[in-house]
């Protein structure tokens, strides 16, 4: 159709121009294929190993000889001694994720409301503290953090992990909320205040509803952060009942005969929720990330 349109136009296209365009299209296509292979190879690997039987893992096949969903069935029914608490551990991961999202949104939005909207004196101190936390690598704080959790009496407790995740997610939340809050007219707050609304009412009825897009972006971010995190969960949770899926999964790695097909199936089941949520909120996430700097 575009060819027809082009021919109908009175402008004469230079043949060399067209050749160059075709060449560049071909080059783009080639690059596209490279990007596709680069992205999908590790994912292909994880899927085929999960589809293989235990014996087939240790062969030189590059595709599964007899693909079956048996490994997934084993994972879902907890049918292997390493997986005996799988659903409980999955529940722990979910519990940590949901609590992290909720607390990050609550603490972050309250602080941003006070600093950005009510303009509390010395609010910049809090913003700077948040910015500083944002650039400290979490893994560098792990050793003293572990000791301090013992002092607080939170060893082997899910709340120790939640505290860690919230600590590292809130600075980003404050950063985003403050930037997004600038786009909401302050006159709304003032009008409500003149009508006699208390700060709590302004926060609940005006601020939160208007911040909904930023809340979604930061909530998704906090969930992905908690789901990605391994080190703190590994250090702070030790018993089988309190472990999360990544910690239990990493234990497989250290066993002598690692059941790779079960591990990969476990990994896929674990990866599905964040992938689904990410794609559901992708647009908002991207907007949020670029709005207020970045964090992986």
């Amino acid at each position, binding site marked *: 159709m575009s060819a027809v349109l082009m021919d109908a136009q009175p402008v004469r296209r230079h043949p060399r121009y067209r050749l160059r365009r075709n060449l560049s299209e071909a080059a783009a296509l080639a690059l596209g294929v490279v990007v596709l292979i680069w992205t999908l190879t590790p994912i*292909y690997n994880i899927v085929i190993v999960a589809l293989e039987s235990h014996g087939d893992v240790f062969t*030189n096949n590059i595709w599964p000889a007899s693909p079956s969903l048996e490994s997934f069935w084993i994972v879902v029914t907890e049918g292997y001694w390493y997986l005996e608490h799988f659903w409980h551990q999955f529940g722990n991961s979910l519990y940590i994720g949901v609590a992290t999202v909720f607390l990050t949104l609550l603490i972050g939005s309250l602080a941003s409301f006070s600093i950005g909207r009510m303009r509390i004196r010395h609010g910049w101190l809090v913003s700077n503290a948040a910015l500083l936390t944002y650039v400290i690598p979490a893994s560098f704080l792990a050793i003293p953090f572990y000791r301090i959790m013992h002092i607080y009496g939170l060893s082997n407790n899910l709340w120790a992990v939640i*505290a860690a995740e919230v600590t590292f997610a809130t600075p980003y939340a404050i950063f985003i909320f403050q930037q997004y809050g600038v786009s909401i007219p302050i006159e709304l707050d003032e009008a409500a205040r003149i009508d006699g609304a208390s700060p709590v009412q302004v926060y609940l009825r005006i601020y939160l509803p208007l911040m909904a897009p930023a809340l979604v972006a930061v909530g998704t971010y906090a969930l992905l952060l908690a789901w990605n995190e391994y080190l703190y969960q590994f250090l702070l949770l030790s018993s089988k009942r309190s472990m999360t899926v990544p910690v239990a999964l990493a234990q497989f790695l250290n066993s002598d005969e690692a059941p790779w097909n079960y591990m990969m199936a476990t990994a896929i089941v674990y990866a599905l929720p964040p992938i689904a949520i990410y794609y559901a909120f992708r647009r908002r996430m991207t907007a949020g990330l670029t709005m207020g700097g970045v964090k992986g």
Partner: protein
Amino acid sequence: MTEALVLRVPGALPARLLPVSKPRRRAWRGGLQGSEFTWAVAFVIPYAAVFLAFVAYPVVYGLWLGRDPKLYAELLADPIYQRTVVNTVLYLVIGVNLKMFGALLLSGFFMRRGWWVKVLLLIFVLPWAMPALPAFISFHWMLNGQWGLINNFLWDVFGVDGPGWLETSRWLALGSVIVSHIWKWMPFWTVILLAGRMSIPQELYEAAEMDGATGTRRFIHVTFPLLANLYLVCTLLSTLFTLGDFNSVYFVSGGGPALSTHVLATLGIRDAFEVARPDLGVAAVMSALPLMIPLVILLMRKLRTTEVQL
């Protein structure tokens, strides 16, 4: 044309990415009165408590643990530590720059029109959405010298016996870790730079085309000057995040073979919890401070001054 460009960018993005001068925000008219001030303080207290209990206290405690100068002498004399420092520098210099440069190029590629580019972008961001652990254990097994996918492929297709990527050589293992890290994090930075590119007004390109600038010259004279600040901030942030990256090294090479591919983040944890020397672990991590502090200062400055442009 311009309309389509704006529509494609979600949210308040275009305004944010351009240097727009905004009138300074006022406080609530008349300042905070009576109970309002109490509320404002009450709203900040949860975050202040989190910061004091879980950031300030651990930082001070860490500084106290690593206060003994003898620890640093002990570290410097240790060949494992020396190798770790070299690895960390290589990991940062090669890993971060390859990743950011790749992201810069790919963000240009994803600006192309056409349905297949859009679909490809959806697939390309999958590593970012995937949790770290599944991704890295997949790399770990894929690179297994005996049964891994890569060597199986080399053998089945080319009849070549591939090397033990993670088991035999320090450089192969370190290279594998860097590639895994790039695989996981390049999509994220690509999306950031893509949004930066999309916010460049189309009129600028049209004007440049009038003046005869296309292709490479257009990139050098239009795109890059406008993207340079964002690129710098992203590179600085990425350097700090990569410095703290524990998962890639821990799960892909595990610091092996023979403790030769550790970076500071993993060595600190190893010293503290496997060797049971928390003071030494903290010292290892703290030895990154001379690199970190200038980066943080530079970054905080950049973030403050370019707040509107980011």
